[in-house]
């Protein structure tokens, strides 16, 4: 069996049809879209405007509201720094949900150096934003909230429309990172009521190297970089035409096939969940059971560490991801770089337990056979590692002694 890729939260395989759309722009159709008087420039410019329309259609935006950037990290940095700087005179308080991606969270220090304060809005045990906490923290002078649409780690879908209604009343802008959700479930910027939203090409079977920032008409932003006149001056630099063309095509396909993909993902996800739930003891699923990304299954198992699980899965041909501290920043200078996932700690998993976490994020390309294979192989791996675990040993001893079930560690 060839590789089973269940790690679509960090990458997706580019669609063949997308590559085909890109190829002309990688070969004879080269040119700089700013060279408007040249045939080469005209072709390039048309291509990116066509792609802009396709991206806009997928998220129900006006093409003029779509700005191309090089990556989701750039979109997130542009959105948050840019909106904050543009609103500096209205206030200095910026809110992040506790479970934002690093490309949001790690901006905190830089923003503080510019004079902003950062506060974190709590989430509940399922990862849903705590509306009371949000209510409290938006009462006095917050200017911006960053809340992701879906966490790639635990799959929970946030109630964006509900949040945006509250924020509108309070004149707080809402930026939404829809990188994990877009292409899997409907993302409609109007219905969601967001002011800005980021989408990534490589997460929806498009090429790496392109991302979009939706910016609602009339919302002001300060550019992160300065240079030429590209992207309405908001994102200067020669456009990555082939990547943008591929991104556009990937969005077109995602829109066309959304329902089909969603149904398939839901079915595969359900089967995977049920399969491993019934085969593995002391397993804890993370994220909300219903309000979640289709095809997303995340959990932690007791007595086993996540990096080891991940490596075994990899050896068995399965790609997944983990929130284990051990697998976090392994090339750091020392172990202080290792930290358990902030998402899992935010939903209340004790740091020493969330080490056993695994996330499977499926994509349209996965199959039932792959799901069955993972269901068959995962319990064996857990078993092998548990046999090796002194914590499990203790648990079993206690279980035999006291007849407890699912006893706690230590």
């Amino acid at each position, binding site marked *: 069996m060839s590789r089973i890729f269940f790690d679509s939260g960090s990458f997706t395989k580019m669609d063949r049809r997308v590559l085909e759309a890109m190829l002309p722009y990688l070969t004879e159709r080269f040119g700089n879209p700013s060279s408007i008087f040249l045939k080469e420039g005209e072709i390039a410019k048309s291509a990116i405007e066509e792609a802009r329309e396709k991206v806009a259609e997928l998220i129900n935006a006006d093409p003029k509201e779509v700005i191309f950037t090089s990556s989701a990290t750039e979109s997130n940095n542009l959105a948050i720094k840019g909106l904050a700087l543009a609103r500096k005179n209205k206030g200095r308080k910026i809110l992040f949900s506790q479970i934002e991606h690093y490309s949001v969270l790690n901006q905190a220090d830089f923003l503080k150096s510019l004079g902003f304060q950062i506060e974190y809005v709590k989430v509940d045990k399922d990862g849903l934003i705590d509306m009371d906490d949000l209510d409290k923290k938006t009462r006095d002078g917050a200017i911006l909230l960053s809340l992701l649409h879906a966490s790639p780690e635990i799959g929970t879908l946030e109630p964006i429309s509900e949040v945006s209604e509250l924020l509108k009343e309070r004149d707080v802008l809402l930026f939404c990172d829809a990188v994990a959700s877009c292409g899997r479930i409907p993302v409609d910027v109007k219905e969601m009521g967001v002011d800005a939203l980021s989408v990534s090409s490589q997460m929806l079977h498009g090429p790496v190297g392109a991302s979009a920032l939706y910016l609602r008409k009339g919302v002001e932003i300060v550019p992160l970089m300065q240079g030429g006149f590209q992207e309405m001056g908001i994102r200067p630099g020669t456009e990555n035409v082939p990547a943008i063309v591929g991104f556009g095509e990937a969005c077109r396909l995602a829109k066309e096939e959304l329902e089909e993909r969603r149904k398939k993902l839901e079915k595969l996800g359900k089967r995977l969940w049920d399969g491993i739930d019934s085969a593995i003891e002391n397993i804890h699923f993370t994220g909300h059971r219903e309000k979640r990304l289709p095809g997303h299954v995340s959990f932690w198992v007791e*007595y*086993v*560490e996540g*990096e*080891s699980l991940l*490596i075994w899965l990899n*050896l068995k041909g399965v790609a997944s991801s983990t929130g*284990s*501290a*051990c*697998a976090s*920043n*392994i*090339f*750091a*200078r*020392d*172990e*202080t*770089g*290792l930290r358990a996932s902030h998402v899992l700690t935010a939903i209340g998993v004790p*740091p*020493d*337990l969330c*080490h056993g976490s695994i996330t499977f994020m499926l994509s349209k390309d996965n199959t039932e056979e792959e799901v069955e294979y993972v269901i068959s192989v995962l319990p064996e791996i857990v078993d092998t590692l548990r*046999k*090796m*675990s*002194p*914590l*499990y*040993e203790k648990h079993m001893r206690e279980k035999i002694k006291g007849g407890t079930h699912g006893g706690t560690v230590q």
Partner: protein
Amino acid sequence: MAGPYSEKVMDHFMNPRNMGEIEDADGIGEVGNPVCGDVMKLYLKIENDVIVDAKFKTFGCGAAIATSSITTELIKGKTIEEALKLTNEAVAEALGGLPPAKMHCSVLAEEALKAAIEDYRKKRKEK
């Protein structure tokens, strides 16, 4: 390939040597790392101050399992004196190196070994 672990680490991870318990161990050392939650448990069988058998159980990452495994190999047949000279650097080296952030796993192995020998000495005194 640019994987984080050497072939040696991967070999010990996939085929851990001396994994298990020793029922009537002469010394048992159990240590844990608060940073990443790893727990290592080392069992020693000692005759005439020579480590005649060693087994381990470990909860932890690839490096934790590999360092446990190689440690048991490195100390078998050694006298206690010799075993006490085993440093975490030597453990890491025997594995073909470890990523910086994983060096603490070799420290854990060294500590588990020392704890097991301590335990052995304590038990002997008690006898």
